[in-house]
């Protein structure tokens, strides 16, 4: 049969343009390999006299000490005091605390109309006029400055605290004074000072009063909560949250304690006690699951450890357990059970089906996990059974809640042989993906068939070079290349074959 050239060209589609991808092993990777080879080839020459280390390494190795006197001279020389002008304007950092107190207990509410800018005037009176050298200023620790402790105003007190100078808070005795001090600390935006004032307030105010006042001061409150968290004052923190009616936070905080309980039985009992905590409905269910999983894990662990020690159960001999199942996530537990207890009847605690039921695991999730576990064991018949479903006519077909691309990926990661892989590669819908997977796993038949379906002569020709000479594959390609039109009509039927 003769075909005209034009005919032929019309038949074959052009190869797709290939953009860079990270999966592209062929191109970029081999280029990289070439460069690597080139570089490696010249290594010998380089090593001829390898007397020094050119790549800077990090180590505690000798380097002359920088001279202190030099640096002091350097900075001192450029030091000239100039006339001060208010260089940059103050901007409004409108934090919620501007409305300093709405509790009615604080004196600061009396100042509400006044602008906060007035605090700023203290700067000028404080700035001492003595000319200090700049460099020592940078080098001297603040603790060396000992100023007089005297009767500072709240603003001055806060400012001195910011500068790390000595202050006394003892004079702030009335509630009004204390709160004013706190509000001014907050308006200075210095967390260190805010916390310092809070520590003083914690020491000198009853909890009830402190909590009440903090409720309307969100910024101070957050500092206090953080301080209690850092000092691990769990008891007071819980009291505070209770007073603020932040019940969910309370529940979470208490729940968090389980993390520091090492003994699994104690942990389980603690989790049980958490069930009555005021979680949101949704979280409450999660905590219930947490308890139930651990309870089961303890039972399974005890049984399996014994079975393993007894040496009579084959699977534990063949695949010794690498770690205990205690405190593992639910899905890890499901995997474990799909690995060691796959065939158990649904009534047992360790049956995967039972776990699926109890914890309402989605079909897809169950499928993924069981697939991975059975593939790991190379139980290919189990794998096959997972996919097989019968329709009402009694035909079996392969169905998966997961894309077949993922299935292939999971199987391949568990080192499935090519014969197993190609069954699933063939089921991948997208032709491009199918080809790249088939190439990766050397499923020649699938590649050839797909190129045939795509009518991509060029790719087919290219692929001919990759298969073994004189092989079945080569003959198949030749046949296709020589006689495309005959196959043309059949091509579109091809895909249906896999469904049977």
């Amino acid at each position, binding site marked *: 049969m003769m075909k005209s050239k034009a005919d032929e060209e019309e038949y074959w589609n052009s190869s797709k343009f290939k953009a860079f991808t990270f999966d592209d092993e062929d191109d970029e990777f081999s280029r990289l390999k070439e460069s690597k080879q080139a570089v490696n080839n010249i290594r010998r020459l380089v090593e001829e006299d390898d007397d020094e280390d050119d790549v800077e390494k990090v180590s505690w190795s000798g380097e002359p000490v920088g001279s202190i006197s030099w640096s002091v001279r350097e900075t001192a020389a450029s*030091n000239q005091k100039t006339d001060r002008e208010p260089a940059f304007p103050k901007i409004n950092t409108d934090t919620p605390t501007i409305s300093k107190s709405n509790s009615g207990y604080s004196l600061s509410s009396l100042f509400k109309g006044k602008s906060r800018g007035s605090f700023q005037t203290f700067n000028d009176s404080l700035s001492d006029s003595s000319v200090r050298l700049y460099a020592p200023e940078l080098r001297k620790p603040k*603790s060396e400055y000992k100023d007089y402790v005297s009767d500072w105003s709240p603003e001055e007190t806060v400012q001195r605290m910011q500068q790390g100078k000595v202050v006394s808070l003892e004079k702030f005795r009335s509630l009004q004074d204390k709160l004013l001090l706190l509000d001014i600390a907050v308006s200075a935006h210095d967390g260190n000072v805010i916390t310092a004032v809070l520590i003083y307030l914690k020491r000198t105010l009853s909890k009830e009063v402190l909590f009440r006042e903090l409720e309307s001061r969100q910024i101070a409150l957050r500092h206090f909560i953080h301080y209690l968290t850092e000092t691990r004052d769990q008891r007071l923190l819980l009291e505070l949250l209770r007073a603020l009616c932040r019940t969910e936070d309370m529940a979470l905080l208490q729940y968090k304690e389980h993390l520091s309980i090492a003994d699994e039985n104690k942990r389980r009992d603690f989790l049980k006690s958490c069930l009555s905590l005021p979680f949101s409905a949704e979280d409450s269910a999660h905590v219930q699951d947490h308890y139930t999983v651990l309870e089961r894990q303890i039972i399974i662990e005890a049984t399996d450890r014994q079975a393993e020690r007894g040496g009579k159960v084959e699977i534990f001999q063949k695949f010794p357990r690498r770690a205990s199942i205690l405190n593992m*996530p639910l899905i890890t537990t499901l995997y474990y059970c799909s690995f060691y207890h796959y065939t158990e009847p649904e009534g047992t605690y360790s049956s995967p089906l039972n776990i699926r039921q109890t914890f309402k695991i989605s079909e897809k999730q169950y499928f993924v996990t069981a697939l991975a576990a059975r593939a790991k064991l190379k139980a290919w018949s189990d794998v096959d059974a997972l996919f097989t479903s019968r329709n009402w006519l009694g035909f079996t077909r392969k169905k998966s809640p997961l894309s077949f691309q993922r299935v292939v990926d999971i199987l391949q990661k568990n080192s499935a042989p090519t014969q197993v892989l190609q069954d699933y590669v063939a089921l991948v819908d997208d032709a491009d993906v199918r080809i790249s997977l088939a190439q990766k796993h050397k499923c020649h038949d699938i590649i050839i068939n797909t190129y045939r379906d795509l009518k991509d002569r060029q790719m087919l020709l290219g692929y001919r070079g990759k298969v073994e000479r004189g092989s079945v594959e080569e003959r198949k390609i030749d046949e296709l290349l020589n006689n495309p039109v005959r196959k043309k009509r059949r091509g579109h039927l091809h895909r249906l074959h896999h469904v049977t």
Partner: protein
Amino acid sequence: MAHSARRRDCPELPDFSLLKRLARDQLIYLLEQLPGKKDLFIEADLMSPLDRIANVSTLKQHEVDKLYKVEHKPVVSTSDQLCFLIRPRIQTVKWICDVANADKAAGKFRRYKIIFTPQKFYACEAVLEEQGIFGDVTTDEWAFNLLPLDDDIISLELPEFFRDNFLAGDQRWVRTAGSALHLLHSLYGPFSKIYGIGRCSKMAYESWREQVEEGEQRTHQAEIGKVFLIDRDVDFVTPLCSQVVYEGLVDDIFRIKCGCVEFGPEVTSSDKSMKVMLNSQDKVFNEIRNEHFSNVFGFLSQKARNLQTAYDKRRGMDIKQMKTFVSEELKGLKQEHRLLSLHIGASESIMKKKTKQDFQELLKTEHSLLEGFEIRECISFIEEHINRQVSMIESLRLLCLLSITENGLLPKDFRSLKAQYLQSYGVDHLLTFANLRQLGLLVEQQPGETLTVMESKVGKLVNDKTAGKLTDAFSSLAKKSNFRALSRKLNLVPKSDEEYDLRVPRDMAYIFSGAYVPLSCKLIEQVLDRDGWTGLEEVTRLLNGHEFAVSGSTGGDSKTKSDAQRIILVMFLGGCTFSEISALRFLGRERGYKFIVVTTAITNSSRLLEALLDNHA
């Protein structure tokens, strides 16, 4: 390479090595305050920063005998003087108190000195007081708050800034940030203009301004003209994206620590690991650090060929030529060779890792999320990711990206994904989810209207106190990301039907394969172009405000025209990524600026999310 300096008039960067000398001298001064032989205990996360400015012999010269890492265990030291170099953390101070009290109980007399860096906190001193050892211990501050990591990167090395400030709402580091800025201002200022956005930025600006007023001012030629302050929570999308620029990728995969990376045997193709400094001194790295990964291979193979040619020259040389070759060229070639093989090894390893984890598909999902396209497919991709128990952090990252770009998840999706996440990675992550909700990173969509209506109704009905509480409860709502609207307004996602040539980038989107212009950098670009926020009112409204632009009255007209005005210091409060730095370098080349990035720490998606995990005791 591909985009070499487009404008050749970029000004020179100031020399920041002075900062290192300053920090070292101050440390020496402090060590001398405790004369005689002493053992030094160093907080683990201070080791690398300390390594950058001093070394063992520096310490030895100042009578440091043995070095220990702070490990919260009983000490074995026999020295009668102990010096502790620590971050101001309550638990570390408690441990020191335990050490001192144990000595007391054993009747052992020692001198103790605590050097807090970058500053001490009252809360730490309160611990000393409570534990009854205030006075037995002397304390000092080492204001080491600026570490130059490279010519244009300065880090405060305070990763905890992020969690403390944004999650806990603790403003303890505001003054630190202000002081850092103050030091830069004193040495390289005066600044003429400061822009910023974010609550913390505003506070840091105020703190800086107050410190300027408190201290003395010096006049000298300004080396840095403008400053831009930005809070990390203004843009969470950018740090949550996978990095595909070389330096960012290296950070994502190998974790660059304090400007240094440890390459394992798989990279060095030997049996040992190697620590390598990654900065502009590394000539090979310097040329590829800002490149999209797809360009790196081409560059490296070209380099390898050039190197081969250079080596080949020695064939047919006579003795004299050979001598010149060895003395003049060989050393450079050898160094280049070594660097080249390292970066080839690293690229190879990156390629292997990324191929293994279906990186291409992951990127596709990210890009769809940024574009707001095929969201259902994205959700099922994320779901599969969770089902297969692929990296816990990666799953969380995708969930957060989904939530921010979509302004929260639909209640049905939120519940289902959260449940599956807890099943796959442990119910302990309830605490992580609570943190993410508080930060507004992973939230349930609220039926918007009903809420505002409810809020205003309730506000009218109840007294102030309750209203305050309610507003607090709704505060996560206030942090709505509005990403989609911002993206449209600022044109962050280029049309996907256009070809994007990554070798010749046309905008900052190249750092994300042409799919997304980082919001943070776009804001900086826009504000610099407009010399302020004028015309960006809608954008700042969507970002929840807190923007500012102020000029100093110093700095005459003659100065504003100088090169310094094109040197722009960008300070990220809460961390910045290498991708953002690459984007700014690109912007600098385009506009004739030089950017100096000051950050509380270098971050990436993993670090950002790890800081919010709460599934450990």
